[in-house]
């Protein structure tokens, strides 16, 4: 085999009688160089030594912790016929929880693993309550499960990863430590693979060089093997020492529920304000004018017909305005157009919009009423924003189905520059819409560069 030509990154090789090329592209060359660079630097990074320290110190603590928890548990179970046994068991669980917290903090500060704290321990009142809560503490039981798993994994890691570090240094230092032929002291899996006894032979120059090179290989491989072990442990920490997934979901739902409740309270307040400031004031003024007219008519001798006619005229106009206001408020609570479905309701909105609006709808499944209402209010609010702020000449609304999701896209060719906090009026603005959408696990996405166009995308589940 001869390499007779080197062109760029390609190598042309003649093997036997056949010629073949080992050409690699520029991109591959860049990647290869980056990889070599990375491997060469890795042993000298802080992260590697933090991981090694985590592995060694954490492993030792795990062994101690497991021994303690195992002994106290056995003792607790043996004594379980009395309350003392149960109390010992609970104390054992409480310490397992504490150990879990310690390992979690270690993973956080030494590995930078972003694992959140689980629910704190909440004891019911009284000694019996404490026993019951302690025995049912899911977080503690998961910590107990973590200990033997990590211990077993660490045990394996000592033979595979820790020995690799040891052997790497033994091989690298053997010209100094082994000059008298007393042996290298290599052990573990690497030594077994490369024949520990063989390595311990008194050395000649070739043998010595080979051992040294092996040390170099071990040294650069060790960080990755260690990381493999540490990464599995990260997985254990995340799944057993982090928050209980069930409790996380419960907390999430509690938050969305709070937001939804707040949003509906804000809606009620807005309706009350609309009624108070608009309709009620209108009706009071109306009643007042009629009251004045009535008093003027009480004395038939001296009726100023023009004055009374003016009062009744104003009252009449006020009554009509109050009716129109009430209709608007009622529409804000539940748009009657929705009774016939989203399609018709959106068509009405698009037709009523001050900016000419194109509408395209393709829905195979009818969303649940709550989703239809949210979709309707989103489009209504967004189109109102377009009319008020965008200075647009056209707008478009598209409503499509994507699997089990409903996607609304409202687009305009206006001046852009809309921001979530600035758009819209108070509780019914974009922030209010976002809360409403989040309340059903949906998403609202706004893209509005200065100069436009503005595109708002809303994804809603079809049923909620």
């Amino acid at each position: 085999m001869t390499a007779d030509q080197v062109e760029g990154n390609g190598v042309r090789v003649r093997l036997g009688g056949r010629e073949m090329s080992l050409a690699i592209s520029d991109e591959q060359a860049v990647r290869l160089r980056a990889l070599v660079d990375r491997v060469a630097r890795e042993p000298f990074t802080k992260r590697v030594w933090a991981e090694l320290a985590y592995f060694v110190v954490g492993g030792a603590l795990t062994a101690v912790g497991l021994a303690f928890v195992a002994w106290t548990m056995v003792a607790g179970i043996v004594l379980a016929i009395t309350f003392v046994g149960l109390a010992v068991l609970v104390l054992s669980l409480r310490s397992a929880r504490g150990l879990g917290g310690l390992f979690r903090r270690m993973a956080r500060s030494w590995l930078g693993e972003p694992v959140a704290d689980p629910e704190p321990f909440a004891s019911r009142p009284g000694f019996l309550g404490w026993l019951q809560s302690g025995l049912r503490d899911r977080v503690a039981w998961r910590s107990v499960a973590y200990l033997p798993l990590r211990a077993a994994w660490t045990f394996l890691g000592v033979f595979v990863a820790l020995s690799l570090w040891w052997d790497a240094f033994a091989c690298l230092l053997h010209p100094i430590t082994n000059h008298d032929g007393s042996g290298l002291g290599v052990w573990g899996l690497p030594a077994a693979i490369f024949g520990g006894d063989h390595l311990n032979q008194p050395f000649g120059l070739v043998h010595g060089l080979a051992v040294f090179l092996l040390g170099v290989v071990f040294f650069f491989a060790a960080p990755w093997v260690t990381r493999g072990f540490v990464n599995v442990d990260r997985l254990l920490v995340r799944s057993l020492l982090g928050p209980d997934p069930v409790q996380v979901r419960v907390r999430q739902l509690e938050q969305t529920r709070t937001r939804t409740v707040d949003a509906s309270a804000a809606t009620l307040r807005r309706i009350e304000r609309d009624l108070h400031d608009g309709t009620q004031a209108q009706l009071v003024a109306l009643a007042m004018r009629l009251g004045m007219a009535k008093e003027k008519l009480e004395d038939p001798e001296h009726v100023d017909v023009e004055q009374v006619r003016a009062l009744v005229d104003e009252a009449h106009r006020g009554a009509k305005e109050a009716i129109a206001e009430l209709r608007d408020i009622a529409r804000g609570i539940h748009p009657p157009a929705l009774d016939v479905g989203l399609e018709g309701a959106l068509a009405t909105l698009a037709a009523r919009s001050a900016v000419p609006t194109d509408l395209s709808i393709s829905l195979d499944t009818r969303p649940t009423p709550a989703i239809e209402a949210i979709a309707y209010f989103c489009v209504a609010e967004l189109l109102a924003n377009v009319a008020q702020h965008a200075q647009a000449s056209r707008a478009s609304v598209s409503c499509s189905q994507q699997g089990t999701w409903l996607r609304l896209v409202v687009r305009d060719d206006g001046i852009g520059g809309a921001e979530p906090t600035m758009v819209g009026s108070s509780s019914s603005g974009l922030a209010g819409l976002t809360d409403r959408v989040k309340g059903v696990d949906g998403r609202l996405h706004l893209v509005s560069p200065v100069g436009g166009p503005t595109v708002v995308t809303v994804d809603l589940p079809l049923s909620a």
Partner: protein
Amino acid sequence: MTATGLRVAIAEDSAILRDGLVQLLVDRGFTITGAVGDPAALRSSVAQHAPDVAVIDIRMPPTFTDEGLRLALELRDRHHGLGILLFSQYVETRYAADLLADDAAGIGYLLKDRVADVSDFVDALERVAVGGTALDPEVVMQLMGATRRSDSLTVLTAREREVLSLMAEGRSNAAIASALVISEGAVEKHVANIFAKLDLPVSQNDHRRVLAVLRFLES
């Protein structure tokens, strides 16, 4: 119609109502010294024109909660002799308690609906302007309903309870007499009976009488 010549300042943020009130009061011979939409404007208007009475909406900018009430308490401390008629879409017993904490002279608290009965409203406003009291029947009803003294109220006859309510609204004996279509002498007899039965301190002064009745209902 009647030209009372009383000078009135108005603070009401709804333009429709404000204009309506001005029209009504001018029609009844009042002089409007200022019709404004927020507390600050009323403060300076009152300082400048020294009206006899101020009509104040409770919910006003900026927060639309109880701006008017706080303004009323402030004006009462600053301008002695200024009558204050609070004007609201709802009546809150707590607000009435705050307002009447130490004195009922020149204080009114009415539902906005009351303007529909123009004469009653004008009557209440005049009463407040000259140092009397005008409490909305709704407030009195709430107080009578919520009182822990309902046992003591059972010793009153139906007629006496009616008289008690009207007294609590701040009406004079003459007004009570005409409202119930009885003689003033009969009203005086009912009032004396009520005070005796409830063991209240007798007072000739109308607004002291109101306070006594309210204290009784609140305690």
